[in-house]
């Protein structure tokens, strides 16, 4: 999910686990209205995990490990299970064992972010919603965490919704992009189709990945590359292909002349 600041992303996702109640309209989870009488929001929240924006503000336990065990504890799991899940989750976000006993307040900004994400992963939700999970993470941390989440999504068939301002991450990981603008859905489509609207996105305060930008420009000045490239790998293949094809067509010319 992308959109300019204030476009309604955080507000929308807080509806998805029932934290905010819609003024009008309905939300179905697994085909059931979450506003139906007797519907258990508690159960919904154990399945729909939400990592808030700036989640580091919500670290409150004495140690990193305790903090991540908090969610599983609330699910009523045994202490062993709590611990096991917490350790797994901390591993997934790349927090080293030496930090398990540290106070969350002794961590750097990016380390806090990772611990907060681990707290939700430890709940093993079916739907994982992350509000700007990678803001403030270093590039490798970003790759690690998004990579882990993508792995969870594939292996355990969970659904992931993530809010981000980084178009490169969207291109790399998302099946679909939802673009919010002033509280409405502006686009909801595949990354390639959404990023084709370079100018409209710019008007919405957004952007396209750098490779998309250069490939569109190369396309416009007449290079035979397609304009819907969104990842580095696609761009690389296309450019190599173009130069190889150009070379081989000249080979043919030379052959004819001869």
């Amino acid at each position, binding site marked *: 999910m992308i959109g300019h600041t204030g476009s309604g992303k955080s507000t929308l996702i807080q509806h998805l686990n029932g934290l905010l109640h819609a003024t009008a309209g309905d939300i179905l989870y697994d085909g059931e209205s979450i506003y139906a009488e007797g519907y258990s929001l508690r159960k919904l929240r154990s399945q729909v995990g939400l990592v808030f924006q700036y989640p580091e503000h919500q670290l409150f336990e004495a140690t990193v490990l305790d903090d991540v065990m908090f969610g599983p504890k609330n699910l009523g799991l045994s202490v062993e299970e709590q611990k096991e899940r917490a350790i797994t989750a901390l591993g997934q976000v790349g927090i080293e064992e030496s930090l398990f006993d540290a106070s969350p307040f002794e961590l750097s900004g990016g380390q806090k972010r990772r611990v907060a994400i681990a707290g939700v992963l430890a709940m093993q939700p079916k739907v994982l919603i992350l509000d700007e999970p990678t803001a*403030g993470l270093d590039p490798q941390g970003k790759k690690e965490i998004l990579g882990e989440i993508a792995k969870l999504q594939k292996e355990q068939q969970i659904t992931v919704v993530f809010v981000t301002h980084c178009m490169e991450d969207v291109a790399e990981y998302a099946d679909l992009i939802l673009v919010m603008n002033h509280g409405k859905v502006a686009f909801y489509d595949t990354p390639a189709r959404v990023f084709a609207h370079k100018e409209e996105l710019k008007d919405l305060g957004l952007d396209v990945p750098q490779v998309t930008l250069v490939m569109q420009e190369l396309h416009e000045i007449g290079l035979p590359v397609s304009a819907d490239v969104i990842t580095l790998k696609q761009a690389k293949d296309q450019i190599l292909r173009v130069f190889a094809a150009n070379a081989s067509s000249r080979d043919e010319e030379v052959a004819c002349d001869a």
Partner: protein
Amino acid sequence: MKNPMIQVKNLIYDYLISKNEDEEPERHRAIDDVTLTVETGDFIAILGHNGSGKSTFAKQINVLLKPTSGTLIVGGMDTADEKNLLPIRQTAGMVFQNPDNQIIATIVEEDVGFGPENIGVPTDEIWKRVEKSLSSVGMLHYRKHSPNRLSGGQKQRVAIAGVMAMKPDCIVLDEPTAMLDPAGRKDVIATVRELNEKENVTVILITHYMDEVVFADKVFVMDAGRIALQGTPREVFSQVEKLKEIGLDVPQVTELAHELKEEGLPLPDGILTPEEFREEIEKLWQSSAEMSPTSILKEADLKSRLSIRSI
């Protein structure tokens, strides 16, 4: 010749962590023997993975922390000397990541005037400074607005104006764009560059966005509390492999150019921006159309690699 803005010599900083009262506190070394100089008027970028010591370093410049050993001189003043505290904070202003934590007043212009008022600047001078700094970040139009109605990027620009109203010689920005959308990021970076160019303010920008670094005069890369790499953006970003080793990245087009070069396309090292990339590819394209078939690249080689890949 002007004095350097910041001089750091063998700086070490240890966080002291006490688990319980009676034990000797543990030491955690966050800055490990850093020596560097920032010249007046430079635009400096600091990169590094999470926990590498960037914020700790920034806090030293602003005297939120003091060296465990070594020295740090800001604008000719030693941060270890108690009496320099206020003059140093006026010399080097700080902007943090989260715009919401930095704005105190309920009206933009009052927020910007808060700092100067606090240090007893006369009222008419305060208003002059407020006006000047709001206009230098392009926010004068919003002076009567309430900060909480502004976008993240606008709030950050107000925070920068608040620092500018103190007439600092140097601003230190610790991930000022981490929470902003692309338009907000561009605004903030453009604002900072303009302050650097037009008002000769020394800028120290800490960021994880590699494309923000390409404008810097000099880049320092921190790793485990040390300076692992330094140089111009082009010098630093030419070392793609080394940067990856320490968990960092290069701008996406720099990486693309690097990979194409590895495949045999004759591109220069250290392409930094989409414009540079497009120009280089365009040049290559034109020359490949004109030149004899074999001169542009090792085609056979390239083609065989491509056919392998396409299987």
